[in-house]
C-alpha cells in the first residue's frame, strides 16, 4: 500500500517542481550584464575559428546566403520582409567578426532593444539557427567551427526570445 503513496508523492512533487520552474521560465529574464545584452563578448580562443569562416570576406558572403535563406523560409521571412536587410547583414558581419576575435568593432544596436518588439518565439529562433547552419554548410565552414559560433550565440536567447 505504501508504494502507491510513494508513487503519488513522486508525481505530486514532480508536478509542483515543474510548475514552479515553468513560472521561472516564462518570467522575463534580466539581461545578464550590459555587455552581454549589447552583444556577445570577444573570445580570443576563437581566432582560429575566424579563419575557418574565411575571415571578414567569408563572413560577408556567409551573411548574403544567410539572409537569402531567411527570406526563403516562411518561418522567418515575415520578420525580415520590411527591414533594412543590407544594414542587418553589415551589423551581423561585425557582430560575428567580434565574437570570433576578428579585427572589427560592433557598432550596432543593443540585442534587447532590437528584438524586444518583434515577438520572436523559440520556433522562429530555431528556424533562424537552421538557416544559418544551411548557409555555413554552403560556405564549407567545418561543423565543429559552426558549433563554436552557435555556442556563443545561444546565450543571447533571453534577449531575443520574448514569447
Amino acid at each position, binding site marked *: 500500500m505504501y508504494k502507491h503513496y510513494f*508513487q503519488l508523492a513522486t508525481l505530486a512533487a514532480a*508536478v509542483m517542481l515543474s510548475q514552479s520552474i515553468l513560472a521561472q521560465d516564462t518570467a522575463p529574464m534580466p539581461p545578464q550584464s550590459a555587455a552581454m545584452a549589447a552583444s556577445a563578448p570577444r573570445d580570443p580562443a576563437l581566432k582560429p575559428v575566424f579563419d575557418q569562416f574565411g575571415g571578414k570576406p567569408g563572413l560577408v558572403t556567409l551573411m548574403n546566403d544567410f539572409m537569402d535563406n531567411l527570406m526563403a523560409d516562411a*518561418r522567418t521571412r515575415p520578420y525580415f520582409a520590411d527591414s533594412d536587410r543590407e544594414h542587418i547583414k553589415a551589423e551581423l558581419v561585425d557582430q560575428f567578426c567580434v565574437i570570433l576575435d576578428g579585427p572589427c568593432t560592433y557598432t550596432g544596436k543593443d540585442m534587447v532593444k532590437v528584438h524586444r518588439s518583434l515577438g520572436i518565439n523559440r*520556433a522562429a529562433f*530555431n528556424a533562424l539557427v537552421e538557416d544559418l547552419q544551411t548557409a555555413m554548410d554552403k560556405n564549407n565552414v567545418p*561543423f*565543429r567551427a559552426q*558549433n563554436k559560433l552557435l*555556442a556563443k550565440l545561444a*546565450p543571447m536567447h533571453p534577449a531575443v526570445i520574448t514569447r
Partner: protein
Amino acid sequence: MRTNDKTRFAGLIGLALGGCMLSAVATAAGTDAGPTTSNKLLLTGGVSQLEGAAGGGLTPWAVIGGYGTRDEIGANAFYTRVNLPDYHVDTAGAMVGLYNRVELSFARQRFDTEKVGAALGLGEGFTFRQDVVGVKVRLFGDVVLDQGSWLPQVSVGAQYKKNDQDGVVRFVGAKRSQGTDYYISATKLFLGQSLLVDGTVRFTKANQIGILGFGGDLNNSYKPEFEASVAYLLSRHWAIGAEYRQKPNNLGIAREDDWYDAFVAWAPSKHVSLTVAYADLGNIVIKDRQRGLYASVQVGF
C-alpha cells in the same frame, strides 16, 4: 538469424529508407508552408531507448521526444531489434512530446528465448512480452540554449512495466511480474565541443529491465542504478557515441551484468532516424557474452 527473420529485417531497412525518401519529398514540398510542429534542432531530441523514452538506445535522456518546441506537440514511432547470439528482442512503440515539457510513451517488448527456451523447458522460441508505459517531465534547463552556463536540462520520469509471464518470472525467483522504474536524468550539450553527455539515476527492482520480473530472492527493494551516455556530433545528421547501464542483481538463479553499447545515429531529416549499435548485454540467464547488433528506426511528425 533465421531466414524469415532476415527477410523481416531487410524489409525493415527498406521501410526506413522508403520513409527517408518520402520525408525528403515532404521537406522539399514543405519549405513554403507555415509554422510546422517540428521546430527543434536536428538530433537534439535523441532517439527512442529500449523502453520507449527519448534518449540513447539503452538509457533515457532529459530531452522531451519529438521536435516540438514550447508551443508545439511532437510525436514519433519506433521499431528496435536487438540480435544476440542466443536471444533476440523486438520493441515497437510511440511517444508524444507535449510543449517540450511532458513526454508520454508506450513500448511493447518481445524477448524471444529461441533455443534457450527449449533448454529451460519452456519450449523453443518461448517469448516474454512486456508493455511499458512511460511519462517524463522536464523540470528545468534547455539542452540546446543553455550554452553560457553549466546548467544541464533535468527531467524526472517513470516507466510502468507489465510482463505477461507471471508464472515463469515467479518461478525463476522474481516477486512480481509488474513494476515501476523511477528516474532522474541530466543532459548537457557542450555545443562548442559538439559533445552531448547524459547521466541518469534509475530506481528500479526490474530484473533484465523487467523481462524476468521485478524483485527477487536476493533483493526486493528499490536500488539506484547509474546510466550514462556520451554522443559526439559529427555533423547535423550524424552522431556516434557510447552508453552504459548499470543493473541490479536480484535473482539467485542467474547473475545479471551491466549493459554497454557503442552506436552510430543518422538523421537524414527530422522525420527519420536510424540507429545502429553494437551492444554488450553480458550474461542473460544461462548464456554468457550476449553481444550483438542493435538496430532502431524512428519516424516522427
